[in-house]
């Protein structure tokens, strides 16, 4: 299979970006009118996205120009670490959530990117690995965070049932299995549902971007399908690894349910 080679580009002026801020103002106005108290958050979101994307744009430009795989790997590693930190804040009821999340995101990123390169879908060059890696790790982070958030809530709500099951001589895995299963499902379900409805209810971002950039619609659809399938794989790996490792932190080595008042050393 010949790796994808897409060579479409358009020029976007700063004036066009500035004009789109009108929609941000509209969002702030709606929040003010309905007293949703989100004006400040909308402002912060607009400014942060501007600063972050501009900086990452320059970083990507540098990486593209340097054209070395090591800088790509460094950028992806930084994404994995920040993704794990961000997700661990959302999974605050899971003791020691950072380590399972770090392993989950690293494995999801490495295995899916490795596979798409090995299968000859993308060339192992910065131009492909950086944007695809960003999407893979970002989606994996969201899925893992949702899964661990659900895991933490359910483990807290089901302490009596888990301990009653342990009291029968069940292993922690057996006692937590129904909860781990539901947490895994909740991490994956959003992407599965959005993949089901793609093209019917919404057009996904990559396809829209390519169409705006003047690409052939067939190419845009094919690339979008590749990305959707890649994301399904990475999201599943991330949710599976995160829940499969994190549930163990609720139990002691003597296969007891850990006391919630007892702190587990958290590296972050």
């Amino acid at each position: 299979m010949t790796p994808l080679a897409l060579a479409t580009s358009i020029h976007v002026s700063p004036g066009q970006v500035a004009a789109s801020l009108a929609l941000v103002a509209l969002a702030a106005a709606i929040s003010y009118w309905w007293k949703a108290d989100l004006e400040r958050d909308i402002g912060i979101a607009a400014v942060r996205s501007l600063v972050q994307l501009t900086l990452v744009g320059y970083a990507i430009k540098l990486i593209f120009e340097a054209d070395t795989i090591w800088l790509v790997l460094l950028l992806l590693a930084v994404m994995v670490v920040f993704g794990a930190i961000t997700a661990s804040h959302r999974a605050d009821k899971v003791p020691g959530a950072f380590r399972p999340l770090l392993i989950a995101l690293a494995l999801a990123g490495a295995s899916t990117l490795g596979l798409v390169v090995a299968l000859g879908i993308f060339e192992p060059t910065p131009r492909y690995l950086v944007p695809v890696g960003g999407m893979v790790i970002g989606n994996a982070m969201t899925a893992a965070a949702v899964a661990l958030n659900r895991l933490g809530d359910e483990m807290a709500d089901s302490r009596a049932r888990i301990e009653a099951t342990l009291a029968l001589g069940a292993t922690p895995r057996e006692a937590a299995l129904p909860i781990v299963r539901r947490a895994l499902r909740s991490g994956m379900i959003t992407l599965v549902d959005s993949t089901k409805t793609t093209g019917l209810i919404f057009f996904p971002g990559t396809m829209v971007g390519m169409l705006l950039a003047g690409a052939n619609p067939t190419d845009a659809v094919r690339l979008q399908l590749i990305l959707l399938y890649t994301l399904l794989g990475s999201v599943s790996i991330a949710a599976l690894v995160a829940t499969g490792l994190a549930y163990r932190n609720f139990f002691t080595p003597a296969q007891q349910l850990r006391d919630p008042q007892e702190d587990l050393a958290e590296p972050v």
Partner: protein
Amino acid sequence: MLFELREVRLSRGGRCVLDSVSAGLPAGATAIVGPSGSGKSTLLRLLNRLADPDAGEIAYRERPLGEYEPLALRREVALVPQLPALLDGSVESNLRYAAGLAGREPEVERLLRLAGLDPEFAGRDVTKLSVGEQQRAMLARALAQEPRVLLLDEPTSALDHAARDAIEAALAELRRELEISLVLVSHDPEQARRLADWVVRIDAGCVAGCGPLAEVLA
């Protein structure tokens, strides 16, 4: 002695829950009595290693508890918690789950009768049972593992008099039919008188009395 506790201490959240607890529990029926919050349930959870003490030693059949594999110990020393916590599904599926963990095939009808439930309860959805029925289903589930010791944490605290009498009758019948020891936590000394022949009295995390029923609850 079935269980021997020596200088057992346990703190939770900076609060001393058990303080230098030393007591012997013989085979037969023992009641651990005392007011609410005195540490009775915590003590019971130590006996099948659902928790471990911070200090001190607990021996079961002359061997330290730490020498037992926790899962095997819990199948031999089964605990029925204070509040029913059955798995979703039917009563029978719960019995089969518990028996399967011990590698056994459950005699569903016999287990239900031992726990004071009619065999027709086998197919009932556990969410449709009353609290008393759920408590008896929990008892049947624990019995499905054919334990040598049954730890019962306030088995009738949430029940009315009729349901309480049914559970107590089931427990008395169990002792007659099976070679099983009972360790029962209760805040009610009268229940201890009805069911036990040995008593450990706990007050504020300390042993306030330990010995035959007639001596401790005279």
